[in-house]
């Protein structure tokens, strides 16, 4: 196959092309160091084997990629990743911890060489991987701006021209003359981001740098990234799903180095990522004066009991029946049900008329069944866990908190990323002639 040509109009805007990239690592440090020696030795051998990869590094044939054999204690950190990005597109890279996302970013950034495959990038590449990597703590913020900018590829004139914009964006003010070792971690990240954001990159690689910083800063950064994105192709690693829905145009899910999903359907991709995580076990806390001895979940077409998963569609009705046992001497109790989504956000609180738990008196028998019905459950697709919470009437004591008592799996035929989908009544309002 001939080398890639960029003359076709559809190809003319492709800024990133990744073909069959794989990277292996070694588990044992001692072996890793030794492999380092042998790799360097074979790299330094000018008459080393001209592997076919140098001429056509893409793996041959179909879906099953023929990878080179692994040496002892080695494993594939990233296997056979391929994608293309045009200007203005953003690829969200998600996966569990250790899936190979940061490794892939390092390979894309040119820091470590891939073992197979080919990466083609056009234009200026900027990586926001660690923002204060080149900072020298003893020097002032001003001096570090010049050093960091030089490290990122700016010339001194460019840095001088952008200096004021950098200081303004970072909101560091007069502290810019202070040694960086006295900055808080938030200030350091702000400064690092301000410098990198002034570049006008064609390809932008971002690795979870927005985890630090307060809400205002994260908001500012997301906006800045949104601006940069208009004129660049972006590869974005994150663990925060709302960010994926906010700025990505396509998503890739990595699971132990392999690509398990790749495409423009963000909701599907995020769903696959979330389904990788096993729910936590049942957890019972509280004073113990109330116990949940049975649970029934009833949807339109299906039922489930305690510990099981109820499968229903969006908009289905939901009836929850809890069988409770009480300790003698309790007067009245408030009961509520809470639904948590896969990201441990409490999305639905099922309560009584006064927007607190449903209040009732404890019968002398010490046992009771309570039923709550919701005519229309509008939550979006996903797996939700149910908590049963019983509290004293004045809400000062939690008598029972039973987490992960049961699960509800909702299917909604929608690509939306919102937590709740509402079907509204729509009507066209006539325009009154002026």
């Amino acid at each position, binding site marked *: 196959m001939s080398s890639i040509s960029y003359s076709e109009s559809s190809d*003319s*805007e492709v800024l990133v092309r990744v073909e069959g990239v794989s990277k292996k*690592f070694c588990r044992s440090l001692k072996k*890793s*160091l030794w*492999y*380092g020696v042998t*790799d*360097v030795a*074979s*790299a*330094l*051998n*000018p*008459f*080393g*084997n*001209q*592997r076919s*990869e*140098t001429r056509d590094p893409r793996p041959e044939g179909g879906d099953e990629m023929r990878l080179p054999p692994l040496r002892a204690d080695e494993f594939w950190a990233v296997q056979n990743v391929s994608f293309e990005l045009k200007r203005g597109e953003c690829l969200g890279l998600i996966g569990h911890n250790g899936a190979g996302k940061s490794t892939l970013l*390092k*390979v*894309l*950034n*040119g*820091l*470590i*060489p*891939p073992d197979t*495959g*080919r*990466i*083609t*990038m*056009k*234009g*200026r*590449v900027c*990586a926001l*991987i*660690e923002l204060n*990597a*080149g900072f*020298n703590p003893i*020097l002032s913020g001003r*001096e570090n701006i*010049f*050093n960091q900018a*030089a*490290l*990122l*590829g700016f*010339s001194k004139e*460019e840095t001088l021209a952008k200096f004021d914009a950098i200081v303004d964006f970072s909101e560091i003010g007069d502290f810019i003359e202070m040694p960086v070792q006295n900055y808080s971690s938030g200030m350091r990240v702000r400064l690092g981001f301000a410098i990198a954001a002034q570049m*006008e*990159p*064609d390809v932008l690689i971002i690795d979870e740098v927005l985890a630090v910083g307060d809400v205002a800063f994260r908001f500012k950064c997301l906006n800045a990234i949104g601006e940069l994105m208009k*004129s*660049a192709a972006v590869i974005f690693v994150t663990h925060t799903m709302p960010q994926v829905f906010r700025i990505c145009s396509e998503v890739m899910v990595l699971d132990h180095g392999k690509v398990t999903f790749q495409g423009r359907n963000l909701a599907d991709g995020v769903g696959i990522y979330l389904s990788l995580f096993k729910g936590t076990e049942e957890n019972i806390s509280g004073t113990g004066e109330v116990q949940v001895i049975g649970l029934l979940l009833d949807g339109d077409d299906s039922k489930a009991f305690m510990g099981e998963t109820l499968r229903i569609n969006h908009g289905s009705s939901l009836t929850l029946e809890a069988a409770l046992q009480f300790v003698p001497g309790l007067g009245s109790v408030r009961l509520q049900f809470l639904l948590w989504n896969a990201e441990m956000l409490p999305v639905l609180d099922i309560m009584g008329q006064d927007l607190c738990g449903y209040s009732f008196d404890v019968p002398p028998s010490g046992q009771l069944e309570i039923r709550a019905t919701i005519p229309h459950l509008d939550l979006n697709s996903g797996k939700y866990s149910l908590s049963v919470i019983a509290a004293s009437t004045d809400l000062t004591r939690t008598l029972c908190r039973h987490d992960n008592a049961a699960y509800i799996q909702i299917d909604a035929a929608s690509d939306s990323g919102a937590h709740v989908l509402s079907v509204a009544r729509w009507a066209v309002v006539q325009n009154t002639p002026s």
Partner: protein
Amino acid sequence: MLSTATPNHRLPPSDLPVRVIVPHSGLDGFRYALRSLFTGFPQARELAWRFFLRDTRASHRQSLLGYFWLVFPPLVNTLVWVMLNKSDVIRIDTGAVPYPLFVLAGTVLWTAFNGAIMASMGVVGEARGVLAKVNFPHESLVYTAFLKSLVDAVIPAVLLLPALWIYHVPLQAAALLFPVSLIAALLLGLALGLILVPIASLYADVGRAVQLALRFGFFVTPVIFPLPAAGLARSFMCLNPLTPILVSGRTWLAGSGEAMPMTFVAVLAGSVLLAAAGLLFFKVAMPHLIERLSS
């Protein structure tokens, strides 16, 4: 260096610089490294200067005495050997050259060599933090190490001027060749350090072994004593590439003694070639080293 006249996204697509990353091997890898050493030189040079300024400023900000610490050790070293010689604990005959000047010149050259080899061997260890996180031309680290060892060598060398005056040694034209021998010592140290960098950054033993070898080497190199006129010791010491540098440099400075010019030129040329080869090998090996380093 990328064009900075217009922001890249306003350049027509065919004008954008293209970077292709492919696992290189063999001659391909060397050609690629050589090309990027040349095309990347302006940026690498500017970055090296920035690193040098940054590190020098930082180390001086935390120090009261600053460059005193560069001048003091060779001075004290010289004094110790002079005292030992004067009090007949050792008896070294340096002919027409006054012993203190002899020792100072030798120590300055040896310090230059020692500093260069340790600085170049340590480039990867020092920049460990930034290597695994930012993509920048790595040869700038080597250029910075050379600049630093140059400054660290020149400062004590300045002491030689008052020393020449104190011992009434006339300054001749040949003395202008002393700086050449200083550069030669630096280049030799740089070259040897670069050859060792890959293995030194993986295994700590190499650094230790080199330090030990240098300590021992100080005593089998004619730093504080002249090259013996004949015998097994002379043949052994002539195998040492540092010997012609020391001998020639001192002779040119002091105006008397044997010169070994041909051997000196051979060693200088060899150092230049070895340093260039070392730089190329460094460039080829770096990506493989970065993935093995802890960051």
